[in-house]
């Protein structure tokens, strides 16, 4: 099964990349942009067929490896 793990900065943590990108959008004339968020997305194939087991495994790998719990959160979605 395939899962999509999306890692985002926690609310309130400074995102200098998004801030800089937002500013340069304004400079390029995209003035209506009011906010920019940058996230990392992982698509992971897991060779298991039990939905709950796949989700649990995806959660575990996000928690242990993909996200830095000090500054990031994550969501897990089943793709197929």
């Amino acid at each position: 099964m395939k899962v999509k793990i999306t890692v985002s900065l926690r609310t309130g943590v400074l995102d200098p990349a998004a801030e800089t990108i937002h500013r340069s959008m304004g400079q390029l004339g995209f003035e209506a942009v009011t906010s920019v968020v940058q996230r990392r997305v992982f698509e992971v194939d897991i060779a298991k067929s039990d939905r709950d087991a796949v989700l649990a495994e995806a959660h575990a790998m996000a928690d242990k490896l993909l996200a830095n719990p000090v500054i990031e959160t994550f969501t897990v979605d089943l793709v197929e």
Partner: protein
Amino acid sequence: MTEVNQAVAAEHGLSADEYAEILRILGRVPNLVELGIFSVMWSEHCSYKSSKAHLKRLPTEAPWVVCGPGENAGVVDIGDGQVVVFKMESHNHPSFIEPYQGAATGVGGIMRDVFTMGARPVAMLNALRFGEPSHPKTRHLIAGVVAGIGGYGNCMGIPTVGGEINFHKSFNGNILVNAMCVGVAEADKVFYAAAAGIGNPVVYVGAKTGRDGIHGATMASAEFSEETEAKRPTVQVGDPFKEKLLLEACLELMASDAIVAIQDMGAAGLTSSSFEMASRGGTGIELDLSRVPMRETGMTPYEIMLSESQERMLMVLRQGAEDEAAAVFRKWDLDVATIGRVTDTGRMVLSFAGEVVADVPIAPVAGASPVYERPIEPSPPPVPVVSARVPSPLAPLDALQKLLATPDLVSKRWVWEQYDSTVGADTLAGPGGDAAVVRVHGTQKALALSVDCTPRYVEADPKMGGCQAVAETWRNLIAVGATPLAITDCMNFGNPERPRIMGQFAAAIDGMAEACRALDFPVVSGNVSLYNETDGRAIQPTPGIGGVGLLADLTRRATIAYDQDGLTLLLVGECFGWLGCSLYLREIVQSEDGAPPPVELEAEKRNGLFVRELIEQGLLRTCHDLADGGLLVALAEMALASNIGMRLEAPPSGVNPTGWWFGEDQGRYVLAVDRDQRKAVLDAAKAAGVLVRAIGQTGGDDLGIAGQSAVSLATLRALSEGWLPAYMEAGQ
């Protein structure tokens, strides 16, 4: 708003006595904003309440010192109307929680301390202490801290030119990340942080304020426990790009006369910057917190005052200069806002949305914070180790091979290749030598820079260890040919409420003070980091010393590498074969016992000045000071740096061979000289009363000792270079 009482004060880390003192100062119960202000201003980190009484004993003056401790950084004259501005600071606790961001923001913070004063940063150094390599967290911490230091410094375009890294189990739960920044300014363009000129605007510039690291300053002042690790306060994220813009904008504005005073917002953010500026100026300040640029919605005055968002500055401008300043900052895409003015009330009055939210006198909060004479218990005197009784299970060259592969002595190339050490095109000697050497841009002068401390010596004998840290820094500057000027200190210790820890601190200060005085090497800036403990286990006490020296002519300098066969190797200094606290004892005999090698300050100075004189006269181009691991390790380091071998004579009779090769006696150097230089050097030594003896010759592609087999440089190099990359890759 939460009602303030003693329990709330305790949650803010204030003792019952301190809370009573706040009630006395205000004549009423503080509100939560005011309590927050007191708690951070009176935290150990901002107030130096445990250390102040002892720090006073350090010498801070010399004819070449322009500004000693108390400002953002120390300032020292380097001639031709120029000054060097420098300071070292710790970022230990944040780096343990989030190594990349903790180390990065530590680098950013110390850079701001330097460019706040009008200096362009020209070099960075760092001193890192990690736990045992086998500890499950060590690898992750090294990777994160090194990437964080590089990520920030490289982006800023300031070369990271030197440093040291040690490992010991006492740092398993509490690593040390100390960063030093060195800048150069015109002597008549140094900026200070005293708010002056009643009615002058107080201006905020830089990044917007978010809820970053609220109570970071109080966190740095409390011991770590499993619980605080789980709590994980909002970590500050560094933005080196913004800091680069801030650097350029500040230096651009400083070229005019718009700025009266300027202070970076470091620990305790807006609170400490505003209080310290008013305190130094003997003035008051009014701020309207609604005007502070904010990144998040719904921030309270309490959060605004305690936020530790990075890359921000507070400045007092000359009246009428606001437009000029705003134009410069806007050019560099930075937020700028006038948030208040200087007053003559001696009070800090904060308003928010039209209401006064805090009104406190400045002097008792900033200047007259509590000072504690905490109880002291001396460390038990160490029992010296008798060299003759130390086992010698390995032949010297076998012991050498084992030592070169120990984590404390291995090549740290894996680390320093992640730091841009050549940006600025002024780095004459980067990482890997005795001291880094950086040219003063556009001149023939150069600065020599070194950071040093041997924590195991300090633990065994805090006074001697403190003395040794200063002496070794001095020696490293001498070894490249510099005139040592002054130091910054970064005092990393455990919980000062324990008498043994406070005893270590007091004794280390005494030892440092003695060395500073004897070597004309005053302290001009510094930082104290206490409570470096985890669950009651203290770190090895680490008074890190960062030294700065001056080379008047950059062509007259020495390096550890020689360039030809047939040179004579000379040993400068007495050799008693001191093995107590040595790496040999720890790594080969598995004992951490004994007394550290004594520093004889008179001999130290005599030997050092002798060596420097030779370099200054152009008689000497190859020199290495002896430190960790002793003579044979130093010789191997020289041979590896030169890629030319050496043939060594057997130890002189009457000296214990193990002590000869591996003793860590102080005040010593190895020189490599040709036949012509040899006579001149030996004559000069005789005249100066310095003991110098020939111990071997350069040449070949191996390192050999008379009467023993030799070991190839390739073998030694593989041992020295192999360990760290293999260790780091094993974790991937």
